[in-house]
């Protein structure tokens, strides 16, 4: 087992801490770059929509945020599962670092969805399948965060969180399906978020750029948070003490 573990040398918290520190500034740069480009294309270059006017432009934030929220949940569940299966502390710490960012993207998707809803059909909130699923995803995130925060023993917290994240990941398709079913039965809100405006190529470009910006942002924030988690959890080790001394000296 030790030979195999050597492959994952970055799995050592100290090495991850150093590596992440080196890459994070580049991610921030990428975030800024992509965001500026994406917002420029989305708000200046892309044409005004025939039916929805300028209000539709919020999708350049809403759609990437929604994608990220779903993707990050799966990534979080993946790393948590790795941490559980291989008893790899670093993987579990990474999962914990991802959760708040994932939750944030969910909130962003919901909020931007509301901003789109108001001018489009007059209500701040509509119980359509997508938004409702997004809301339930937020609850899944909050449940995970609450559980790992409530458990004092870090090992138990890692493992319990991994189990919950996996159960949640398995349930996401079930929940999505059942919400779609529920929505089609109760034909209250016939307007659907999925009826996005016909995609001009500039709109697609803008979405892509914004997605990349969200990706880079996620990396930057998750790495920063992960480094903080590592330092807190490994505070009894020698390398962290050295780090603290060096920081104090600087």
């Amino acid at each position, binding site marked *: 087992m030790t030979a195999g573990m050597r492959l994952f040398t970055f799995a050592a918290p100290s090495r991850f801490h150093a590596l992440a520190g080196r890459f994070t500034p580049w991610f921030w740069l990428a975030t800024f770059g992509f965001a500026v480009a994406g917002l420029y294309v989305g708000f200046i270059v892309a044409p005004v929509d025939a039916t929805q006017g300028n209000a539709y432009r919020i999708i350049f934030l809403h759609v990437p945020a929604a994608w990220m929220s779903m993707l990050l949940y799966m990534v979080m569940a993946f790393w948590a599962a790795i941490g559980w299966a291989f008893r790899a502390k670093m993987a579990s710490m990474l999962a914990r670092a991802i959760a708040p960012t994932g939750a944030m993207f969910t909130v962003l998707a919901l909020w931007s969805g509301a901003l789109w809803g108001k001018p489009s059909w007059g209500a701040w909130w509509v119980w359509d399948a997508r938004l409702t699923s997004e809301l339930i995803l937020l609850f899944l995130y909050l449940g995970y965060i609450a559980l790992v925060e409530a458990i004092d023993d870090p090992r138990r917290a890692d*493992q319990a969180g991994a189990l919950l994240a996996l159960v949640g990941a398995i349930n996401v398709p079930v929940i999505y399906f059942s919400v779609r*079913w529920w929505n089609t039965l109760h034909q209250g809100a016939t307007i659907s978020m999925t009826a996005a405006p016909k995609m001009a190529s500039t709109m697609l470009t803008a979405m892509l750029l914004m997605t990349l910006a969200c990706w880079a942002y996620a990396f930057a924030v998750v790495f920063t948070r992960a480094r903080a988690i590592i330092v807190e959890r490994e505070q009894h080790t020698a390398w962290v003490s050295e780090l603290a001394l060096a920081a104090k000296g600087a």
Partner: protein
Amino acid sequence: MRALFLAVLLRDLRLAARRRIDALLPLVFFVVAISLFPLGVGPEPQTLRHIAPGVVWVCALLATMLSVQHLYAGDQADGSLEQLLLAPQPAVTVAAAKCVAHWLVNGWPLIVAAPLVGVLFDLSGPALRSLVIGLLLGTPVLSLLGGLGAALTLGLRSGGMLLILIVLPLAMPALIFGAGAVSAVESGESAAGHYSLLGALLIATLLGAPLATAAALRISTE
């Protein structure tokens, strides 16, 4: 394996029989909570008939969450849980037995009380039948999911609320299909699709939840 399953099941039933008031409290909560809705929404029969399926299901869900909190807490406190996990048979047997016991003690009163409550909301005969069938299929799912939540949050201070937060999203499909079945029957359609979905959900949960609960019990007692 059957000997252990039966032993744990009978023990839990016996314990519940000796604390009958405690066993019936969730049922009382169920009825009281349901009664709040007419007070909040108004007594108009049309409205009440419309919201009845959802109200009954939501209150059944909450009542189950409240009663499932104590599923493992007592055993952990007096050291029985460790001994249960040390039995030669796999922990899945214990998890399954406890969920069945919970359903028999806490689920059945809800199933029996639901039609009575449904009458308060002026539901028709077929709708009442649909409610009972749905709860028959759905309450085991709730007990199974609740058992998983109880095992995960075992011994934590914030236990109760945390359990509810964790389990409610997972229980939403059951809620949707169960309440949807009654609404379908009320509007004259067939609820067969809903029942099949509930049945599929039940089978999937039966296969997955005890395994996950056994893993959670090991994690929580490490």
